[in-house]
C-alpha cells in the first residue's frame, strides 16, 4: 500500500531544505503565506484547488494595469503595442514551457474546463457520429466528464470509461481493450486531482495512436508539478489552468497540434478571430487567433507569463522532486494515525493526499483543521464518480506545493489528532 516515493523517505526531511531546495526562502516570494488565520500562521494545503501567487506575478499584473492597459492586436498607439508585445511574449513563454513546436498551437482560454469544452465542441461535434466512442477514465474530474456527456447527447456518441484498481491506478489492459475501431478520442487526466495518481500518459498515447485515436490530456494538476513536453509525449491536445500554476485566475491554455486546430471551426465568434467580415460572409483569422474571440484576458495572459518565468527560475524539476519528498513524508505520517485510510495509493503519485478518518465526516475534519489554521479541501473534489468508486461520500484532501514545509505536515498531523480528540 506504500508508494515508491514513500518507502524511501519514511523519516522527516531534516529541514525545509531538501532535495537541494529551500522552501523557507521560496515562501518569502508569496505574500499570502504571511497571513495569520484564526490566530495561527496560515498553513495552506489546498494547492490542488488553487495556488498562491508569487510577488512577481502580482507585480506583472500591477505593471500591466498601471502602465500599459490597452487592447491588443488593434491599437496603433504605444500602450497597445506594449500590451500586444507582452501578451504575445507570454504565448512564446508558454510554448517553451510546454515544448510545443509553434506559438500558433497555444490558445489562451479561461482554464482547463474551457479548453476541454472547446475541443469537445470544435473538434468533436462536427466529426463525431452516432455510435462513435469517447474513452475517458474512472478518475476524471467533472470537467473531463461532463463536456463529453454533452457532446454525446448532441452527436449520439457513447462515453466509455476505463476502470481503476483499489489503489487508484488505471487498468492499462482495460484501457487498451476499450480502444476500439469506434473510438474517436481518448481524454485522460495526466494527474488525478482527487487521488494524486500520475497516469502513464506516454504509454496511453502510444496505445491510442497505434489505433489512430487522438488523445487529450487534462494537465490541470500535472503542469504545476512536473516538466511537460507535448512534442515528446506526442499528445494531440493538452489543457491546463493558470491559477493552479501560480498564475492568475480566469486564464488557461489549450495546446493543440496545428494539424487539428487548422481543421477545427472556431469555438466562438466575435472580434479578433476574423480576417474579413461582411454580412454575407466572414473569413476567419489564422491560428491561434481563430480561437480567441473578443478581447482576451490580457492581464491574465501577462500574469501567466510571469508565473512561467517564476517556475523556470526556481526549476520545476527540482521543485517537483521536493514536493514528492514532502508528499512521501506526509503519507508516512498520516497513514500511521489509527483510524485513517488513505484514498489513492498508486505507485506513482504527485501532490495530493486524500484520506478519510473512520466515523468522522470530512466536512467536520475540514472545519476543525481550519480553526487550527490548516486549509485543506473537504468534499468530492469535483470527482463524484471517484468517490463512488471508493465508497465514500467525500474525502479530506491535503495538496502540496513546493512552498510547503515538513513543519506544515506536522501541523496537519497534529490537527488530525485534534479532530479525533473532539470526536473522542
Amino acid at each position, binding site marked *: 500500500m506504500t508508494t515508491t516515493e514513500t518507502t524511501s523517505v519514511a523519516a522527516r526531511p531534516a529541514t525545509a531544505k531538501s532535495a537541494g531546495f529551500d522552501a523557507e526562502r521560496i515562501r518569502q516570494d508569496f505574500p499570502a503565506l504571511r497571513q495569520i488565520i484564526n490566530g495561527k500562521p496560515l498553513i495552506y494545503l489546498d494547492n490542488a484547488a488553487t495556488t498562491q501567487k508569487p510577488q512577481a506575478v502580482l507585480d506583472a499584473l500591477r505593471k500591466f494595469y498601471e502602465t500599459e492597459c490597452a487592447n491588443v492586436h488593434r491599437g496603433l498607439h504605444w500602450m497597445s503595442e506594449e500590451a500586444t508585445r507582452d501578451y504575445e511574449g507570454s504565448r512564446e513563454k508558454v510554448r517553451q514551457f510546454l515544448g510545443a513546436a509553434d506559438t500558433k498551437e497555444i490558445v489562451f482560454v479561461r482554464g482547463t474546463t474551457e479548453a476541454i469544452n472547446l475541443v469537445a465542441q470544435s473538434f468533436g461535434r462536427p466529426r463525431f457520429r452516432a455510435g462513435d466512442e469517447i474513452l475517458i477514465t474512472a478518475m476524471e474530474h467533472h470537467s473531463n466528464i461532463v463536456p463529453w456527456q454533452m457532446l454525446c447527447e448532441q452527436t449520439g456518441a457513447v462515453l466509455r470509461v476505463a476502470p481503476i484498481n483499489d489503489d487508484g491506478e488505471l487498468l492499462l489492459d482495460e484501457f487498451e481493450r476499450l480502444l476500439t475501431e469506434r473510438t474517436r478520442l481518448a481524454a485522460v487526466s495526466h494527474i488525478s486531482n482527487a487521488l494524486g495518481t500520475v497516469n502513464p500518459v506516454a504509454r496511453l498515447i502510444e496505445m491510442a495512436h497505434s489505433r489512430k485515436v487522438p488523445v487529450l490530456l487534462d494537465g490541470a494538476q500535472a503542469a504545476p508539478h512536473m516538466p511537460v513536453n507535448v512534442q515528446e509525449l506526442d499528445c494531440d491536445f493538452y489543457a491546463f489552468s493558470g491559477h493552479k500554476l501560480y498564475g492568475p485566475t480566469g486564464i488557461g491554455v489549450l495546446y493543440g497540434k496545428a494539424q487539428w486546430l487548422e481543421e477545427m471551426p472556431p469555438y466562438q465568434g466575435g472580434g479578433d478571430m476574423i480576417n474579413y467580415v461582411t454580412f454575407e460572409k466572414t473569413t476567419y483569422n489564422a491560428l491561434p487567433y481563430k480561437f480567441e474571440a473578443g478581447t482576451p484576458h490580457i492581464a491574465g495572459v501577462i500574469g501567466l507569463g510571469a508565473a512561467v518565468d517564476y517556475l523556470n527560475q526556481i526549476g520545476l524539476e527540482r521543485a517537483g522532486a521536493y514536493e514528492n519528498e514532502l508528499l512521501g513524508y506526509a503519507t508516512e505520517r498520516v497513514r500511521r494515525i489509527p483510524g485513517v485510510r488513505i484514498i489513492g495509493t498508486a505507485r506513482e503519485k504527485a501532490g495530493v493526499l486524500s484520506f478519510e478518518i473512520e466515523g468522522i*465526516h470530512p*466536512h467536520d475534519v475540514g*472545519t476543525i483543521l481550519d*480553526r487550527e489554521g490548516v486549509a485543506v479541501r*473537504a468534499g*468530492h473534489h469535483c470527482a463524484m464518480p471517484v468517490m463512488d468508486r471508493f465508497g465514500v*461520500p467525500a474525502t479530506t484532501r491535503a495538496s502540496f506545493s513546493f512552498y510547503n514545509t515538513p513543519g506544515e505536515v506536522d501541523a496537519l498531523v497534529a490537527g488530525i489528532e*485534534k479532530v479525533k480528540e473532539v*470526536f*473522542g
Partner: protein
Amino acid sequence: MSEVKELYQELIVEHSKKPRNFGKLAGANHTATGYNPLCGDKVTVYLTLEGDRVRDIRWEGSGCAISTASASLMTERSKDKPRAETDALFEIFHKLVTGGSLSEQEAGQLGKLAVFSGVKEFPVRVKCATLAWHTLRAALKGEKAVTTD
C-alpha cells in the same frame, strides 16, 4: 479550540454517532428528500401526519456530524407535535444558527436544540444544521425534494 468545542458540543457528537429515529417509517403518508449540493449531505424525512399532528417521524441519510445530529434532534423534537409548533420552532432555530437575536421566550422554547448555538460562528455550516428542517417543511407541504440552494 473554544469555537470548535462550542460547535461540537457533547450532545451533537453523541447524536451524530447514534442518531435517533433513523430508518424508514412504515406507513408514512408524507416524505421528502433534502440535498445539499455543496457538500453532498442527504436527508430523507418520513412522517405520518394525522390531521394537523405529526404522529410519527423517522429519517435516513448521510452527512456530517452537524447535519446528522440536527436530523436526529429534529425528529426527536417534532414527534407527536402539532405541525404549527414545528413550523414556529424552525423559525427560532434558524435565528439561532444564523446569529439572529432571540427573545427570552424564543430561547426558552429551544430546549436541547440550543446546542446548535455554535453554528453561528461557522456560516458555511448553517446549511448543514438546517437541512433536516428544510426537508421536514417540504414533507409537510407535500413537496418531494428540496435543496439548500
